[in-house]
């Protein structure tokens, strides 16, 4: 089975994240880049599927040159090879542009199964997997808390507010996974060394037949008009519990008409 796992490098959430005032895009130099946490679950799930059903796991990322760190991390976990879509023309792409660029690349490299994390910690749109399914015309198996494959049949448990839906489809398909679907493995020393020798193919937009007019800041379907650092919340009242902390909290709730 040809499994492609899409990963994204995001700014470390433990550092201060910024937008760039020049063009209102993410300032990727302001913070350390790390693999998006939910992508680790996607890589793990892809590896588990390969281990159970055979095949090959290809890592696909779209991002600047420094995203190679994230590719190496996924390769060190055990993926076989990688494709890095990197082009200055992609800078500033929104979700629609990104889904278009990734869909074009997926068409080019081929796939039986595409696996993603359900959202990224930077943009947090949570729409990319659904958009890929739409663009590729394949079943959308998103928000999976469990994935089962039997031949070309695939079933997931789609996490919902009330519990989950059992969903069935046939491959090829796009799957997104939620946190806790599995326990992502730590790369071993051997894995880290092996990752350095695994093939990473670099593609530009022309290689993947991506039209420049549909990507980047100029091609995006949405724009950030302006942004501002959020003003700090007004300092609240902090009291020390002297045996009456609960009552004082109740008085506050009453003053705000909550009770």
């Amino acid at each position, binding site marked *: 089975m040809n499994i492609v796992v899409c990963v994204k490098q995001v700014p470390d959430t433990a550092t201060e994240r910024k937008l760039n005032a020049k063009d209102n895009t993410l300032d990727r130099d302001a913070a350390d880049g790390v693999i998006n946490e939910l992508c680790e679950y996607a890589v793990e799930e892809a590896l588990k599927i390969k281990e159970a059903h055979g095949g090959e796991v290809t890592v696909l990322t779209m991002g600047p040159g420094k995203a190679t760190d994230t590719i190496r991390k996924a390769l060190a976990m055990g993926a076989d090879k990688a494709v890095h879509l990197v082009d200055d023309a992609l800078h500033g792409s929104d979700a629609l542009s990104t889904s278009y660029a990734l869909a074009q690349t997926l068409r080019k490299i081929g796939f039986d199964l595409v696996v993603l994390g359900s959202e990224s910690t930077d943009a947090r749109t949570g729409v990319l997997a659904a958009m890929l399914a739409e663009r590729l015309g394949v079943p*959308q198996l998103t928000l999976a808390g469990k994935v089962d494959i039997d031949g070309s049949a695939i079933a997931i448990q789609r996490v919902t507010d009330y519990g989950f839906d059992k969903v069935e489809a046939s491959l090829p398909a796009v799957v997104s996974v939620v946190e806790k679907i599995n326990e992502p493995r730590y790369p071993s020393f051997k894995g880290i060394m092996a990752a350095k020798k695994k093939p990473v193919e670099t593609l530009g937009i022309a290689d993947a037949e991506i039209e420049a007019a549909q990507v980047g800041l100029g091609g995006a379907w949405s724009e950030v008009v302006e942004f501002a650092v959020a003003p700090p919340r007004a300092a*609240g009242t902090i009291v020390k519990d002297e045996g009456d902390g609960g009552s004082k909290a109740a008085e506050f709730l009453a003053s705000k008409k909550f009770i």
Partner: protein
Amino acid sequence: MAEILVLVEHIDGEVKKVTLELLTLARSLGSASAVWAGPGYSESARARLAEYGADKIYVAGSEEIVDYVVAPKAELLAQLVASASPAAVLVAATAEGKEVAGRLAIKTDSGVITDAVGLGDGFVAEQSIFGGGVNVRARAVKGTPIVAVRPNSTAPEASAGAGAEEQVTVALSDAAKGARVVERVKQEKGARPELTEAAIVVSGGRGVGSAENFAVIEKLADALGAAVGASRAATDAGWYPHQFQVGQTGKTVSPQLYIAAGISGAIQHRAGMQTAKTIIAINKDSEAPIFELADFGVVGDLHQIVPQLTEEVEKRK
């Protein structure tokens, strides 16, 4: 007035609160049209939607629309965008609502904004990003603006609309029938409101100490008619089910009141609750970052403070 489509969120035939919020918001920008997808529509649903300002109600009651994941709702809305040429489409920024918005954006060649916490003239949306650290104003620049709005972004206000009903049939494409829902498994949720929709959320974290002790959090939540949430530390420890996790990798909530008990307030958690209108923090560590967000904070042992608060709430009912 320009027509604005609002995709109705409903469960067991009941219109969810977030839809009333979206109708209120749509009314401030144009004429609100509700779109009902799937079975369960009734006269009481019609009355409810009209009460909150729906001038028009499109009803696509076919079972088929909910038999497949997300795609049929996007096809229904795309058909209405083509026939009614609305000024904008609003959906609730739930996990599924955002997916509908994403597919609709591709079908209609339109821009999409997710997790809006406000929406104004020109359909410029307000968003709060990076765990509440940055406020953004963004808009769609192509097609029909599609905006996914977070629950609790607007207070729902009744104001009667015409409520004219229009039946809609949609012929689903084969592509929309790729992922079939074969069973819906409802897990016990009790009488509490849904976490992402609740006006009040009471959350417990590491300081709660054990699964049994979460009863303290639940009692306060029940006294307030609130939903229960948990920090990642608490769900990772197995004290509370994972689907109640509030934070960066869990649910994002934006309630009127958020009570954080025994939660330190790491970015992981703040990213999921920072847009709450009023925040109360209870923690024994006076240096905990959660106090920087709190409108009211109590430094002390939650096992003493929370039961006392619960008792006071009960007394004042």
